[in-house]
């Protein structure tokens, strides 16, 4: 479908001499997008620079023209008269010391395929059964020395902190709970990667059994909706692998 419209575009632009690409070739208005570029050294060294950066979204939304031309100036989304403004007093008060969010895109290079990994085990059982909140801190321990060029970079036994990123409770028809841990750190060093764990899924037996039950006792299959899946559990004997950021060991290499 898309191929077809591109072809049509080219044919028509040739016919009436409109360069439909003019927007794409224009200078980028913001250099912020540079932060998002995945660096590919080989390509950047061997090719002439190209500007394929997006512009302001409004330039593209031609569909909005009608609305813009026909709306009254008071109909804007971002102005609320003081008299009717609703305040989120609790958030405003409780978060008043919070600094503005500063965005920083991590630099990375997908060309590089040689990475170093660190093996970790949790210090105790982490389970969705115990009440937990997003943001809670949990701990792991390095289970094996990490060597690079004959030197130990990270020692066994070092403590790794992590954060509960999301908890998703078990669902109907035996679908299990799951938990995602992230933000792994050894001291100041941030490790890359996440640990995702899912509980036991009962779905595989719940479905056939509920169908069979429904065959003998009409509508009884619906009762199986209330069978929930298992809790997600991370046991100390399970080993997980996290990645050491490339910049870290490349720096070590120079020393």
């Amino acid at each position, binding site marked *: 479908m898309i191929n077809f419209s591109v072809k049509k575009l080219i044919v028509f632009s040739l016919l009436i001499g409109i360069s439909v690409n003019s927007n794409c070739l224009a200078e980028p208005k913001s250099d912020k997008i540079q932060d998002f570029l995945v660096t590919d050294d080989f390509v950047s060294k061997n090719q002439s620079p190209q500007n394929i950066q997006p512009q302001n979204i409004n330039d593209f939304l031609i569909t909005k023209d009608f609305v813009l031309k026909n709306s009254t100036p008071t109909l804007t989304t971002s102005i609320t008269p003081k008299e009717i403004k609703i305040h989120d007093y609790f958030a405003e008060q409780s978060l008043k010391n919070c600094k503005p*969010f500063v965005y920083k895109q991590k630099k990375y290079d997908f060309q590089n395929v040689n990475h170093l990994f660190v093996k970790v085990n949790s210090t105790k059982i982490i389970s969705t059964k115990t009440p937990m909140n997003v943001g809670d801190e949990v701990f792991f321990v390095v289970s094996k020395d990490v060597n690079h060029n004959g030197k130990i970079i990270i020692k066994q036994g070092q403590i790794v902190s992590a954060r509960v990123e999301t908890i998703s409770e078990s669902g109907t028809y035996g679908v299990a709970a799951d938990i995602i841990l992230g933000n792994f750190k050894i001291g100041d060093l941030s490790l890359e990667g996440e640990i995702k764990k899912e509980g036991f899924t009962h779905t595989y037996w719940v479905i056939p059994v509920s169908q069979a039950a429904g065959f003998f006792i009409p509508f009884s299959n619906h009762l199986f909706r209330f069978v929930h899946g298992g809790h997600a559990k991370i046991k100390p004997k399970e080993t997980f692998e996290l990645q050491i950021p490339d910049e870290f060991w490349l720096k070590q290499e120079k020393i």
Partner: protein
Amino acid sequence: MKKFLITIISFALFTIMPANAMVTDDTQDGHVQNKINQIGFRILNSNKIPYRITFFYNNNAKTINAYSAFFDRSITIYKGIILIADDEDEIASVLAHEISHSVDGYQGILRGYFQEVKYLLSPKKYEYKADKRAVDYLVNAGYNPLAIIVMDTKMMSQYRYDVFGTHPLSSRRVMEVYEYIYEKYPSFLAHNKYADNIYYQNFLLTSEKNRKKLEEKIKTNSKKRLKYD
């Protein structure tokens, strides 16, 4: 002569105008498709999502929806979404949610084949999860996660009950997003760019009771999951 002129003019009108209209249409669709790709791939790359996910624009304006297809993990976004979105963050919020579904479509045995069954059986769980992951994805890509609340206020209608539905009650979903942002990325609430936005204002208006519940939870340091109305 007059008749002849009219014929010529009307001929010109009928032949040139539709052609022009078609060009405009296609150009426009092309631009929107481009923009969607740029937002979508920006989210994928800055979150280091190691799966192939594609984005397709459907120019049906009557549908205000987007979905992630399980068989090929592609994401389709309808024109209706583009029409009601007021900034890039809002479009990104819809894409980030769908990306989370597509990422799920890669998990588990047989390259994620059974994930579809799980989704069908317990859809609400995955909706909450997708909303929360969307918050993370947006923040990591440099977007404002509160855009989810703004967008949901505009596009998600409120059903009476959600016991047998596939999606949780919209009021619950937005509150879970709000709570997640409060706990994990409070700066966005402390310096809220949407504070005056009429849709965000409407969220504040309609979520008063639920926000009171959250306030209680935070003040008492409780770890229990709240059941929002």
